[in-house]
């Protein structure tokens, strides 16, 4: 381990790496702070640029940009009541009320400080748990992987979707997209309709940029010319009184970080769910729940910590199994594959120095968030005045060039537009877009493990549950999909007992 750690430090001694990390951080802060531009969009748009970087630098850029964007999404939430990123939506009303009460400094400061603390908590768990889990996962065969992928997909539907039926439909559409191309068990052109470009499958990057960036631009376009109206003129010192908050709300901090980490580590559920659940739990266990919604910092402390801790923890299933914890890690997994750093337990045994380097970058990115976030809050009033009607066309050009750059083909630009239109229609009709990406990322893995397991088991379904670990995973999966039903039955039984 010492040699690996030393190797990791050597990798990090590159000054160019830190230049990239700083630039990516500033970029992440900026994109997160502009309302309507999300952390996922920041990450998706970064992919074409990371294409030209060495592996560790590429991951470093993604880690730092996404961490910063999740934090800076709090800023427009507080000042404009518009969450900069969905992960901030849970406590947007609360921090906006605080701003109206003249406590913008405390709301923003708490958002920043507890983002950093929660982030570090999630990273600590990542560093400790991932290598242990990887060692365990070395024993996994296709049967275990099959159940694990299925579990991840089910999480996205059961936990992360408001409307489970529509979540399921989205997921199936994503899986269907992954089926296109020659890369299948038979090696035959599947769903290519005679197109040569489709034989290689549909590339992730233009799809992501279309679904998460171009669709956002379309959503922003009608109001892009209207400047935001801000109810505050200046922001004072954000760190005043924060230490008292840490002492007063240390239980909330720990609870939020722990819940965020747990949700993040679940495949398929990420920062935004973590924030919503934490906010709810905070209110439920609070000594003064009546203050929630009136501009009370307690919920911001807990869910602000939760969403950033989820971000680090989401990398646990991503690195160990190649199963993304949220849409940002789904993109990161795509980058890992592009860089020939195929995620999985062998990543930890073959190139441990890379894994440690990624961990260290996580710690560094969270620490850098403190000064950079402070800087961002200082300039945010002018940042929010950035003319969006000038910005949006430039971002669209970045989307076009980014999609083109991956394969140097205009076909990819076409895929991007199609994906954007589909995403807009889906969102308009309350179909979640996140599960689509999860389906696209995991489709190949699901198929490989399903088909080779079927061949190994000679068509017998018993083969899927014969090994103890695969049986456990199958049971977990069954519990997860039956959970809504069990809860309803439990609630009914309880009601009957009371009556």
């Amino acid at each position: 381990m010492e040699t690996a750690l030393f190797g990791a430090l050597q990798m990090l001694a590159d000054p160019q790496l830190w230049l990239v990390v700083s630039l990516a951080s500033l970029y992440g802060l900026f994109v997160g702070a502009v309302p309507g531009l999300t952390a996922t969009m920041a990450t998706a748009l970064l992919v074409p640029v990371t294409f030209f970087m060495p592996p560790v630098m590429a991951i470093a850029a993604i880690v730092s940009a996404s961490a910063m964007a999740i934090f800076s999404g709090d800023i427009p939430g507080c000042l404009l009541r518009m969450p900069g990123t969905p992960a901030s939506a849970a406590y947007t009303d609360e921090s906006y009320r605080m701003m109206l009460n003249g406590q913008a400094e405390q709301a923003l400061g708490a958002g920043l400080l507890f983002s950093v603390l929660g982030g570090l908590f999630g990273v600590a768990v990542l560093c400790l748990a991932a290598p242990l889990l990887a060692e365990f996962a070395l024993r996994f065969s296709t049967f275990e992987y099959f159940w694990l992928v299925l579990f991840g997909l089910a999480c996205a539907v059961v936990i992360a979707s408001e409307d489970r039926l529509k979540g399921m439909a989205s997921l199936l559409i994503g899986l269907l997209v992954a089926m296109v191309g020659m890369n299948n068990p038979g090696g035959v052109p599947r769903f290519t309709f005679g197109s040569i470009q489709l034989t290689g499958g549909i590339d992730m990057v233009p799809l992501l940029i279309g679904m998460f960036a171009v669709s956002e631009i379309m959503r922003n376009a009608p109001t892009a010319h209207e400047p935001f109206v801000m109810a505050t003129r200046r922001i004072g010192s954000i760190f005043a009184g924060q230490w008292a908050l840490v002492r007063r709300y240390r239980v909330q901090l720990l609870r939020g970080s722990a819940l965020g980490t747990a949700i993040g580590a679940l495949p398929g559920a990420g920062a935004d769910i973590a924030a919503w659940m934490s906010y709810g739990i905070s209110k439920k266990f609070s000594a003064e729940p009546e203050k929630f919604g009136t501009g009370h910092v307690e919920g911001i402390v807990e869910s602000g910590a939760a969403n950033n801790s989820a971000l680090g923890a989401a990398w646990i299933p991503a690195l160990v199994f190649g199963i993304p914890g949220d849409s940002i890690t789904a993109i990161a997994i795509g980058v890992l594959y592009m860089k020939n750093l195929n995620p999985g337990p062998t990543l930890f045994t073959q190139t441990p120095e890379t894994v440690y380097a990624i961990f260290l970058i996580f710690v560094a990115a969270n620490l850098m968030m403190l000064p950079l976030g402070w800087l961002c809050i200082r300039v945010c009033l002018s940042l929010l005045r950035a003319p969006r009607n000038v910005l949006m066309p430039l971002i669209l050009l970045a989307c076009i060039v980014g999609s083109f750059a991956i394969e140097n083909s205009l076909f990819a630009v076409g895929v991007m537009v199609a994906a954007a239109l589909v995403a807009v229609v889906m969102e308009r009709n309350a179909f979640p877009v996140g599960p689509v990406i999860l389906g696209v990322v995991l489709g190949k893995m699901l198929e490989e493990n399903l088909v080779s397991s079927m061949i190994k088991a000679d068509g017998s379904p018993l083969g899927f549950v014969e090994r103890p670990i695969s049986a456990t995973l199958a049971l977990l999966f069954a519990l997860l999909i039956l959970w809504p039903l069990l809860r309803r039955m439990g609630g009914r039984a309880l009601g009957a007992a009371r009556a």
Partner: protein
Amino acid sequence: MIQLNDRISGVVLAALGAVTVALAQQLPPIPGQQVGPSLLPSLIGSGLVVCGLLLMLRVARAKSDSQPPLAVFDRLDRRGLVCVLAIPAACVIYIVLADRLGFVLTATLILLLLQRTLRVQWLTAIVIAVVGALAFNSVFAGLLRVPLPGGILTTAFG
């Protein structure tokens, strides 16, 4: 924008699923194996059919036909719709013209068109369009060596 009723979404999903299953059945099997490239697509297609049917059933069972309104494109006037559709239109313009006009001219054109649609003043729009296109060209074609189409500017001056 387009708001489909859930019943229509259900029909579309079920139809997509049925087509998927039908196409999957035509895929050749792996010689000597019972399962092959048609297995998972068939399962996915069947799943889509079930989802579509359940969605239709849910609409039929619901008392009112009203859908929860979404804040995204509500109360969109014609201007707003033009703004929304200008975005994919710009991408299509790029796809059609990029190889003929080259990157710099096409990029300038779509930047200008989009900014004007989003009500940026002429002077700002022109300056941003030209500077933006040139900056993108030097970063991506120059620095990152993306082979952006050169087009008529390179033929004329290169």
